[in-house]
């Protein structure tokens, strides 16, 4: 190749590569995209509380062999009722732990009771810290995926928060960038109506309506199932 053409050729190749890269749908959920390990005032062992029970001996509560499969929502009770997941009040920790004398002298529990006796809130560090102008609605996602679609709690929470049940203190596993959120909202999800509350809605006037941009007629996938996209409206999260 002529030496003068070398550079233009390389440039063109690069641009084509970028375009091809951009043209393919990417899932931005790379497993190794971990956030920093955040130092917490008390090393709360999530795996102990939420982790799977020991499959061999379910009654064995040896910490090295598994957890207690406590529902995420048992402690993170605000998430289904509010925009914010919130942090459980100290009362909640103490409520159980004052009745568990076996671990009472473990250093973390001792630390916990120090806070309780001083009636001081624990200064937890925020792990999944979105920018200040983003308002993610926990309640809505839990309503839809857990209550309406009946999916398992840990799967639903884990979609954004990762495998918390295997962690000690929580650590970010997903990028939670805007593109990551949007990539999910742009997918056609099959609509499952389970439980008491139907996913669709009630017609107003004589007009059928659907949640999203599309009319129901347009939102059937190849199998003929109803599908819907998540809302695509900036003002849902930024306001």
């Amino acid at each position, binding site marked *: 190749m002529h030496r003068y053409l070398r550079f233009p050729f390389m440039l063109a190749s690069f641009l084509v590569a970028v375009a091809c890269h951009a043209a393919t749908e990417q899932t931005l959920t790379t497993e190794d995209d971990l956030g920093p390990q955040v*130092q917490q005032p008390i090393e709360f062992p999530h795996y102990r509380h939420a982790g799977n029970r020991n499959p061999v001996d379910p009654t064995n509560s040896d910490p090295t062999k598994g957890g207690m499969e406590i529902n995420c929502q048992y402690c993170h009770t605000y998430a289904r009722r509010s925009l914010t997941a*919130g942090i459980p009040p100290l009362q909640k920790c103490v409520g159980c732990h004052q009745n568990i004398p076996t671990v009472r002298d473990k250093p973390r529990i001792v630390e916990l009771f120090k806070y309780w006796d001083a009636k001081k*809130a624990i200064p937890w560090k925020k792990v*999944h*810290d979105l920018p*200040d102008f983003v308002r993610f609605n926990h309640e809505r996602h839990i309503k839809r995926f857990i209550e309406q679609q009946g999916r398992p709690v840990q799967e639903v929470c884990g979609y954004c928060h990762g495998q918390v049940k295997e962690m000690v203190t929580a650590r970010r596993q997903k990028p939670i960038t805007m593109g990551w959120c949007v990539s999910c909202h742009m997918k056609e999800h099959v609509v499952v109506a389970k439980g008491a509350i139907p996913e669709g809605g009630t017609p107003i006037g004589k007009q059928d309506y659907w949640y999203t941009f599309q009319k129901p007629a347009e939102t059937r996938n190849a199998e003929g199932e109803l599908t819907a996209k998540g809302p695509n409206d900036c003002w849902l999260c930024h306001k």
Partner: protein
Amino acid sequence: MIDSESTKNLSGQAFDRRDFLKVLGFGGTAVALSGCGNTSIEDGKETVVSYVEAKDYVIPGVAVYFNSTCAQCDAGCSITGKIREGRVLKLEGNPESSINRGKLCGLGQASVQHHYNPDRVREPLLRNGDKGQAISWEKAYELINEKLQGAKGEEVAFITGDVSGHQKVLLTNYIDSLGSKNHFVYEAVAPAVVRAGNLKSYGVEMPRYRIDKAKVVLSFGADFLGTWISPVHFAQQYAAFRKGVDGQRGVLIQAESKMTLTGANADRWLAVRPGTEGILALGIINALGIATGDVAELVKDYDRARVSRDTGVEPSNIDKIAAILRLRSPSLILAGSAAEGYVHGMQNADAINLLNHVLGNVGKTIEAPVSVPFPQLTQTKGNTASLKKLNDDLAAGKYKVLFNIATNPVYTAPASYKYGDSMAKAGFKVAFAHYLDETALQADLVLPLDSEMEDWGTHVPEYLADTAQINIQQPLMERLHANTRGMGDILLTLVKQRKPEEYKAFDDYYGYLRYAMLQNKAALGGSGDDDVFWNDTLSKGIVKLSGASGALSAKAAVEGLKLPQPEEADKQYPLRLIPSVTSNLRDGRHTNQPWIQESPDPLTTIVWDSWVEVHPKKALELGIVEGDIVKVTSKTGSVNVQVYVFPGIHPEAVSIPMGRGHEAMGRYAKGYGVNPFGIMDAVFEGSTGELAMHETRVNIAKTGQRVIVVKDEGPAGGKQMGRRVALSRSTDQVDLSKEV
């Protein structure tokens, strides 16, 4: 979530009071200060503040609502406070209350800014030379006790604003325990002449006005949409009145010398020569031609030509008004404060009220008031005559100890009183204050009060709408500053100094209040469990009572009604000064709330400053234009103020709004505008002794300076320049019956 920096700001306070009141910091979704700052995901940078213990109803990110009472004016609107993570965010009207029915005016909305105000007094301050020295409450109480030891009962005086409810009971008990009879209830802007006039004409001080039932409202300077008595309530009545009884839209006619907010909403606004409102009223009676007996005798001289000459109202307008009043009944005639700020104010009021009798409105659109079955809780009604008396006494050196409770007479007293000097003659001056205002600055001891969002209380408004009610005031959040105290708590402590035995059962005012309310549970319409009743009361925010209605006197009071002829213009002071009361600022106690300062005056759209309104004709005559700084001089003094050329004022009058021109009080109030009290002459209404605010005469001189008037209105000056923006049409072009 809250970042660690903000936690530090908050950590000065102990987080151990009632759960819902606890300040959780900016929990939940962040208050994104500079919402465009943190633009990336930053794990582990911020601290989440969580609760130690939490009630079930407290959910981060979800607001809780508590009902209370607005204390910005005396109308007694009930409010609902929106509380998130222990902070009051916003006040809304409480729909339970028949006074404001879920609505709230701008002034009421702004009271959160009173609560969060950075200029509030935070510590008890004892005068030390020119400075205030922070002392403890114990020391302050001791000091008061000590000073009272050295004073006889009659040497102790109290000046307060309107008080009602249990606070009034405690205050009265305290004053009694001191053996003092000197309780001066002072309100700078109070409908005292209205009350006296009503008493004379209708037999009650404050009847219920039913604007919503009237087909025509003729108001003589009553700014019922802006400032008069209970504006939020009247505005709601006004809305119903405009919708109309059986589909006929109500007609509002406003006669006054300076256009008020109500005047700006009138179908016909009449510019009346200042002080001649009574003559106009009699002229209308004459034109109606339906009066008989001594009334007819009284009005026979007030023929159209004469009335028109005296008042400046065109004869055709008098005819039109008489015609519509004759045609549409019932009507309602209102005598407002603007008509009564003269030496002959009572005569004006009588003449205007007479019109109601002639038209047969009494009993139809003027109804008997409901009475509250607890007379000890009803409002003591403030007036200006009390300040005159107090001032005279102070000047005579009669008092050794003066308690000033949340009033600011140094600012609102006419300059000729020299109230500051009089006050200096009192031996020991205690000011209970929210801000270091003009009066607090002159006190020897300043005691910081809780805001109405931190304090307990009960209020009984003077003007009650449908039923009698007691309004509950309860804390919406924990005390913002550790060293402020509620007025009730202070009074309780003080009264305990005197009568320790009687009050020893009560730890604090809350306990007293709860006890007192529960004592009368049956009378308050409660039954069953105390706690249930109490919680129910608190959650509603008001207690509705079945109060009996009084009776109105059907007979018109004609005796002694004699109106003076309008005076010839004074050569030296040719203009009348109308110190106008605006709906934002009123008597100036809220000036330090920035929303109030930045909320444009509805008529001139001016913000952050005072102005003098001059009619265009007069302005042309004097050669002044908008923005000229003029010197407004009265016999008492003078102020320099910017001119706003305003068509809605009688050419013989100029008007300066009240409420600005503070020399102290705080960063948002100090140094903005001028204070018209400073040039007000001390002239008094003939029969009540109230300050006749519209009797000051002034002249105007250019100073040669000119400024740009800070206002929202553009240079087009309220003209639409042919654009179709705000449209209007007359009733014959519109069919209102089709409307929803």
